[in-house]
């Protein structure tokens, strides 16, 4: 009984001390073209964290982008230097919002392919993400 309680407490602290990435997926993309990586950054800690870069060996360039309204009903995308993941919250990197841009792909990403991208956070450090293409 006591051991179970200790395990429960330990598990709670283990879960709440690390930023994790969930529900990751990537769009299909053609060689030399661009595509986007989407995911949920789950930050259970009591301090905010910051995504400031990402790395993917299958692309010539990787940036964090956001989609924005450019006026007159137009939409656009632009680079953002960082994204803050607030404490005890989940930040959704999703279509028509923030996403990681994989640019100038070195090869096609087809439906069902799996890519591995490294996300760089100020506190959590590097977090490897596996995402399936759809």
């Amino acid at each position, binding site marked *: 009984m006591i051991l179970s309680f200790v395990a429960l407490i330990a598990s709670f602290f283990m879960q709440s001390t690390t930023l994790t990435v969930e529900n990751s997926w990537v*769009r*299909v*993309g*053609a060689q030399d*073209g*661009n*595509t*986007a990586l989407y995911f949920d950054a789950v930050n259970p800690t009591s301090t905010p964290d910051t995504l400031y870069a990402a790395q993917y060996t299958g692309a*010539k*360039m990787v*940036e964090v*982008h956001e*989609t924005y309204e*450019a006026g*007159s*009903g*137009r*939409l*656009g*995308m*632009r*680079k953002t230097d960082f994204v803050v993941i607030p404490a005890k919250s989940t930040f959704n990197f999703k*279509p*028509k919002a923030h*996403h990681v*841009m*994989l*640019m*100038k792909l070195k090869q*096609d*990403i*087809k*439906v069902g392919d799996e890519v591995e991208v490294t996300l760089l956070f100020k506190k959590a450090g590097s977090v490897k993400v596996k995402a399936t293409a759809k």
Partner: protein
Amino acid sequence: MQKFVVLTLLFLMLFLVGCMSDFPLNDPLKESYTLIDQDSNTVNFPKSFSGSVIVAGFVFVNCPDICPLTTHNMQAIQDSVNTLKMKGVEFVAITFDPKRDRPPVLKKYLELREINEKNFRFLTGDSTIVSDMMKRFNIVYGSSDTTYTEDGDANYFYTHTDRITLLDQKGTILREYKGSTVNIGEVINDLKKLTD
């Protein structure tokens, strides 16, 4: 006298009902644009699709976030149309980045998304013609951020209108939807009105 008033009112009601349309626009496209599709076949838009309802989307291939939503929605509408066995509906994506979006690029875009090309064309063409066409369809687009790889390879993007447009069998523009967030059911209902 009473009979006259009733008849007048009845006539007015019938007249108003006759004027009301199922669609907010009634804009006949008198122009015809000579373009090429993903297989490098020449296509005159909308003449080549005369007799079919057209679902037209405006996108560019290097757009990784917004345009794929529009394309995905067109694909979802196409799936429903094919499932419902609706006849005489053509899907046409048109790029506003004709310099980069040449037929092999368009072909790859469709293949990667496993789009049924039986009634789905992806069109490009001469820059001037594409520009004129976009103006006619009220598609506003302009280059935005450009980034460069370490080897100096430029990667540019556009800000652009988010649009799917519906045209009838005669090439009349009937309705405009937001491409990335269009209600699929609404489009299917509109297509049923036009193809029944």
